[in-house]
């Protein structure tokens, strides 16, 4: 077991997979010679060469499509988009091709394509660098969408994604690349489906993913310490397909649910989880589920406004206390 940073976990997964299979290759803007905006591909260019660690022009849609084409005949591309905001440009190839080719071909063509994107709001980058797009990806049939909250999963999800025969979008977070955590020394794979209970509890289920898992864990600690509330924190991790049974199982135990997302509420992760609760375990609920989410505004530059737009652990604590009347 070694302590590693989130970016180091991603790098290790690249390195192991590229060493194992000569058809695994990486492409994206500044990932090669420069080593990647967040260092997640550093050193790979020197080790694997320019054919397999490709610095692309700023042509998101077409290099995504090149990755998809290569995947269709058996290569295993890992395409990095520098920021999720730029992934809008690649939506055509992602939605119209990657997600649909397996289905449209009656299962005859597989598309083992991986896209990695840093998502989320960092620090004062302004509205065009602060989008959170999971709601868009998770609305597309045929894609898999996963979001690592820890260095361990940053490593394990990329490993699984490269081996998976479906297209997988991995949403990372700009503010988490330097996050530290334990990663086992032996190779392992984080499943691309299923929730993970990060902290068991009995009074309320807090569902989170990506950076909001950390807000939820902080909140749970405070709730236990200051208010005697035993919260269960569930990392959704896979946003598509979502683990309906795992979500319901937690609520059958706690009978209460709060969903925490960094994104605006409409048509999002929270609305999806609440709908699942309605459909799967409505009569197990002792209170109406609550969403903690960003304000419905383009993210402002000003630091106070930015902070106010994005939720935090304090808002989670407040939501749980209100729900429990404590």
């Amino acid at each position, binding site marked *: 077991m070694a302590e590693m940073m989130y970016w180091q976990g991603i790098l290790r997964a690249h390195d192991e997979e590229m060493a194992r299979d000569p058809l695994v290759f990486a492409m994206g803007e500044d990932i090669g010679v420069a080593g990647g905006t967040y260092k997640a591909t550093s050193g790979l260019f020197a080790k694997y060469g320019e054919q397999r660690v490709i610095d692309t*022009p700023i042509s998101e849609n077409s290099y995504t499509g*090149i990755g998809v084409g290569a995947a269709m*005949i058996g*290569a295993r591309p890992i395409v990095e988009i520098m920021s999720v905001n730029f992934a809008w440009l690649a939506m055509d190839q992602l939605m119209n*091709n990657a997600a649909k080719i397996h289905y*449209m071909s*009656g299962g*005859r*063509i597989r598309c083992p394509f991986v896209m990695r994107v840093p998502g989320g709001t960092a620090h004062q980058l302004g509205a065009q660098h602060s989008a959170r797009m999971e709601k868009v990806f998770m609305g597309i049939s045929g894609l898999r969408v996963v979001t690592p909250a820890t260095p361990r999963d940053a490593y394990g999800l990329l490993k699984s994604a490269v081996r998976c025969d479906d297209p997988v979008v991995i949403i990372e977070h700009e503010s988490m690349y330097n996050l530290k955590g334990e990663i086992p020394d032996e190779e392992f794979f984080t499943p691309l489906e299923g929730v993970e209970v990060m902290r068991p509890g009995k009074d309320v289920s807090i569902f989170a993913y990506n950076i909001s898992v950390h807000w939820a864990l902080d909140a749970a600690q405070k709730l236990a310490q200051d208010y005697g509330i035993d919260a269960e924190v569930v990392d959704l991790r896979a946003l598509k397909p979502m683990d309906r049974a795992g979500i319901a199982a937690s609520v059958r135990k706690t009978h209460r649910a709060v969903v925490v997302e960094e994104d605006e509420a409409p048509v999002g992760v929270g609305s999806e989880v609440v709908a699942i609760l309605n459909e799967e375990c409505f009569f197990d609920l002792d209170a109406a589920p609550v969403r903690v989410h960003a304000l419905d505004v383009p993210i402002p530059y000003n630091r106070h406004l930015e902070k106010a737009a994005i939720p935090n652990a304090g808002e989670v604590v407040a939501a749980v206390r209100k729900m429990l009347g404590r």
Partner: protein
Amino acid sequence: MDATDQKRLLREMLFARRFEERCAEAYHERQIGGFLHLYPGEEACAIGVLEKARTGSDYVVTGYRDHIHALKSGMDPKALMAELFGKETGCSKGRGGSMHLFDPDVHFMGGYALVGGPFPLAAGFAKAIQLRGSDEISICFLGDGANNQGTFHETMNMASLWNLPVLFICENNLYGIGTAIERSTVEINQYKRVAPYKIEAAQCDGQDIDVVMDHAEKAVQYVREKRKPYFLELMTYRLRGHSMSDSGAYRSKEEVEEWAQRDPIGIYKRRLLEAGVVSEDEFHAMDKAILDEIENEIVRFAAESPEPRLEDIARYVYTEKEAGSHG
């Protein structure tokens, strides 16, 4: 090319024409639904180019007007017609339709609806070929209109920059649906548009299959040996509407008539008649045999094939997991 091959090519073009005409009938009979884009008038393009490729081994991709590219790549016409009928025996198991034909067994990689969408896919096949170090090439057929998509420029740049073995074939039929090329595009000579990307290019007649094959042979050889992209523009014309719901109001009768004189089947047939390779009688017998095959084997197969089962509707959203697989 010997007489046997010449006769075979004439037959392939005639087969393509009759196949498409039968599709139009089936569409009016409501056996085929959705959008249907037919190829009459342009047969010499796909058939001439792919005659010079290694079909079954080279990778082929195109847009929605894809029936003949699929056939010439080696797809079974029964599986094609069954796909148009939406049947489980179709090449895409009835999930694709006319615009989404697939046959990876012969490296026919699809049929795509989004104009310009296949450019990067073709470059991606070439990228995978490059990584494997094998000697196939990738061949991308698209229309003139597709060259106004960003994917055209982005892909040309990367294909040239990375020396990807892709042959781009532009089927310039002078229109994107109802918009004439000079009304949408500043540089109407499409082959000139790749010059800034330092890609070798040529333009030639797309109606005379001998001319097409001549250029295609050189182009294929260039890509295969030099491992670099090449762009070939074929001047052609569709004799039918863009799809089945086309008024045709945007072009004159005179223009259509002029191009009908340059029908690729007419041109080739006259040449073979003059050379004594075929006779009128043989041609009629050929036509009759084709019509018979289409009706009694192909359409019949499609009509009698089963529909996909409703309980299979969610199959193929994801790949079916093998034991021990990850994820």
